[in-house]
Each structure stands twice: as structure tokens, then as C-alpha cells.
């Protein structure tokens, strides 16, 4: 039995025992998706539901998104980044710690369907996986692809793959990938301001402002989002490029110091915009200025809710 099957079995066993003992009213996890390369969110409410729970490297959404405003005890199947988001929500008082049980999954990185499609142009009808490879097949072909070659951008540079804060781990801790060194952001900063503006304007030129990135994001739980405010209205309803830019900038600012690089926003984007580019600019600033990484302990406070009298800010005259 491979590591994936072991994890799936452990998730099912744990979910069943949590539901039977009443430690959780619902277990939020993944089931097999209806299309290839996708795992869908699944709410297991009875012990017999638990057999539908799976773990796969297509589990790209962040299930912590379902936690805010949830009443009753809930168990969450969480990979490293999801668990950090859930911890963030506890520290931000979105869910009481006592109501949350984290079933931690040591993650070895998730697969980016766009990269798979780039490798195999033919329409994929079926995808299966082992620990190291995925096998995609369609009419008249079957191709094996190494997972390491088709990992998502954020999974390639993840330094917190194992959810160490979880109540229970479903397997041995996964080795950390290399940490994000922000090399591309640094390279970008070496360019001229007008080239950078071009780069970012080009990045979001296809944006429809469907707000899928916001809806997929576990940090975006405001009762009324600034994009929906009408009195005053901060954002026009058309796709004016400046409104779109404002949306992406403010969204990134709202997530600053809270983003755990789960990549749910990029997964949700229907036009494949690298929306995390804005977040990464701020991730870099947060790490450099305040040496802070979100979601690593239950006690830490988000960096914008605290201060030091000697915080650096040389640009203020």
C-alpha cells in the first residue's frame, strides 16, 4: 500500500471515530472529483459517509475556507498550508479552538492541471496516481508523468508541508521543499518602474473580476467585502483596468501577513492569473521587516495587529 492509500485509510478511520464519538459533527475533507485531476470538497456527517473521503495530490482547494462562522464541532482534513490557515482563523477568532480538530496530512506537493495539460496536449479522460507519478489517459494514449515535474508553483517552494500544529498526523512528516527565496520578485525589482507596471498590468489583463480568488481564499471572510460596498463605492462594477488593479492590490493588502501560500486563489482563477504575485511581494516584505510567518503557532498575533516602537520605516520623513 502506497503512502496515499495509507493516508486515505487513516483519514477515513479517524473521521469515523470522531463522528462516532461525537468529537466532531462534521468532517470536512475531499472526495474523488467528477472530472480528472480534481478532488472535490466533501462533508462527511455520518460514519458511513467516511468511506468517500480520500487523499490525493489533486486536493488543491483550501478547506479552512469552510471554517469561519461554522457552529458546532468540526474536523478538518488539512495539509500544511490549510492547517496554517485554520490556525490563523483560530488566532483571528473566527472559530473557537475547542470546536476544531485538525486531521493533518503530510503533503508532498499538489499537481497543477495546467502543467499536466502543457505536457500532454490530448484531452485527458482519466487520471490515476501513485506516490511519485500520475498516469493520465484518454482516447488511444496512456502517459505516465512524474509528479515532481508538474507540481504547483507554490508547492515547489513550500517550507511547511507537514501540519505540525495538527491534532493528529496521518503519516510521517513530509520533508520540506526549499523555502521561497522570492528570486523572481527580486529580479523584477531590478527592472525599471515602467517595466514593472507593465508586468503587473499584463498579469491581470485577463481578469474578469469574478472574485473566484476571493471566494476560494480562507482569509476572505469579511461580512461585506470592499468590492461589494456601495456607499461609498470603492470599486467600479466594470472591468476598468484601474478598478481591476485596485482590487488586486487591496486584496493582497488584506491578506498581508496572513497568506499561507496555499494557492487556492490561483487554482480557482478561471483565466489562470498568477494572483499570488501581489501576495508574494507582501509576503517578502512581511518576512523581511518583521520576520513573521503566519499560522505556525496558536498564540502568534498577525503582524498588522501588533507593533514595535522601533519598527523600521526609513521612507517616512
Amino acid at each position, binding site marked *: 500500500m502506497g503512502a496515499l492509500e495509507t493516508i486515505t485509510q487513516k483519514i477515513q478511520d479517524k473521521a469515523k471515530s470522531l463522528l462516532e464519538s461525537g468529537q466532531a459533527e462534521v468532517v470536512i475533507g475531499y472526495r474523488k472529483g467528477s472530472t480528472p485531476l480534481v478532488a472535490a470538497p466533501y462533508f462527511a456527517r455520518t460514519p458511513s459517509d467516511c468511506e468517500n473521503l480520500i487523499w490525493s495530490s489533486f486536493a488543491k482547494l483550501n478547506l479552512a475556507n469552510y471554517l469561519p462562522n461554522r457552529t458546532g464541532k468540526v474536523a478538518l482534513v488539512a495539509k500544511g498550508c490549510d492547517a496554517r490557515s485554520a490556525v490563523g482563523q483560530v488566532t483571528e477568532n473566527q472559530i473557537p479552538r475547542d470546536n476544531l480538530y485538525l486531521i493533518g496530512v503530510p503533503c508532498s506537493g499538489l499537481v497543477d492541471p495546467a502543467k499536466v495539460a502543457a505536457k500532454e496536449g490530448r484531452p485527458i479522460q482519466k487520471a490515476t496516481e501513485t506516490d511519485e507519478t500520475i498516469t493520465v489517459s484518454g482516447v488511444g494514449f496512456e502517459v505516465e508523468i512524474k509528479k515532481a515535474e508538474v507540481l504547483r508553483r507554490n508547492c515547489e517552494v513550500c517550507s511547511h508541508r507537514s501540519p505540525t500544529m495538527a491534532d493528529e498526523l496521518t503519516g510521517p512528516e513530509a520533508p520540506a521543499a526549499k523555502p521561497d527565496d522570492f528570486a523572481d*520578485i527580486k529580479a*523584477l*525589482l531590478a527592472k525599471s*518602474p*515602467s*517595466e*514593472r*507596471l*507593465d*508586468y*503587473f498590468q499584463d498579469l491581470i489583463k485577463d481578469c474578469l473580476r469574478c472574485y473566484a480568488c476571493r471566494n476560494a481564499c480562507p482569509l476572505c471572510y469579511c461580512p461585506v467585502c*470592499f468590492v461589494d460596498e456601495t456607499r461609498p463605492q*470603492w470599486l*467600479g462594477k466594470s472591468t*476598468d*483596468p*484601474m*478598478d481591476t*488593479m*485596485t482590487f488586486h*492590490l*487591496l486584496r*493582497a*493588502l488584506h491578506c*498581508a*501577513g496572513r497568506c499561507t501560500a496555499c494557492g487556492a486563489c490561483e487554482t480557482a482563477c478561471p483565466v489562470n492569473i498568477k494572483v499570488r504575485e*501581489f501576495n508574494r*511581494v*507582501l509576503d517578502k*516584505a*512581511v518576512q523581511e*521587516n*518583521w520576520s513573521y510567518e503566519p499560522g505556525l503557532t496558536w498564540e502568534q498575533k498577525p*503582524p*498588522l*495587529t501588533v*507593533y*514595535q*516602537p522601533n*519598527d*523600521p*520605516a526609513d*521612507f*517616512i*520623513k
Partner: protein
Amino acid sequence: MSEFEPKVVAFFCNWCTYGAADLAGVSRLDYPPNFRVVRLPCTGRLNPKFIMEAFKRGADGVWVSGCHPGDCHYIAGNYYARRKFVLLHTLLETIGVDPNRLRFSWISSAEANKFQAMARDVVESVRACGPNLTFRKAPLALDLPEVA
């Protein structure tokens, strides 16, 4: 009107820079009239939305000024604001907005001379940047008939 006159939106804290502007006026210190002041109770009140809105509506520059760290009327408002400014400044500079278009300063209500110098500096550096043509919302071209 061939020469470009910059428009700067200024966000001043009620307890310090706003007073400094007042004192500069009372002291007959000459400063450029190119900025429109929005009075805030504290720089901690400043939401990045406000700055984006100013640029969107065509401001050539934005100037934010509040109390020196440690002197906040509300004890710590400007400490929190300072962290927000760091991120905002980093983000806008990274995406290619000229840092001279977005200026920050600490000016107490006694520092009328610093206010005068800063006002001149802000307006002149925005003037050097030229009109804000790239980081603003295009006016709606509805082709409506003129109304009297």
C-alpha cells in the same frame, strides 16, 4: 494653462500635521497651494482604499502625514499605521508607481517650518513626476450631450 500644476491629495492627522498647516498659515509661511487636505482623526484611520481612490480619481500624488512615533493622541495609532504604510509603500513601489507620488511624513503641530519644507518638497517632486496618466481610472466616454 500650458504648465502642469500637480494635484496632491493630503491626508493629515487632526492632532499634528493639520495643526502644523494651521500654524504655517498663521505664521505667514508661504507654501504651495497644490494639495487638497483630508483631515483624519489619526493616521491609524487611513485605509489603503483612500489612497487608491485618490489615485484612481486622478490625483498626481498622495501625501500622508501624522504624529511622530510615540506622540500619538491615541497612544499607538501611528505605530499601527506605520506597519500598514510599510506594506502599502512596498507594494506600490514594486508594481511600478513612482515612490515620489506617495509620500509619508511625521510632522508635529509645532513644526510649521518642517511642514512648509515638506509641502514644497512634495509638490516639487510630484511636479517632476509629471501628470499621473498610468495609475488612474479613465474617464467614462459616454458621448452624452452637453447640459447647460
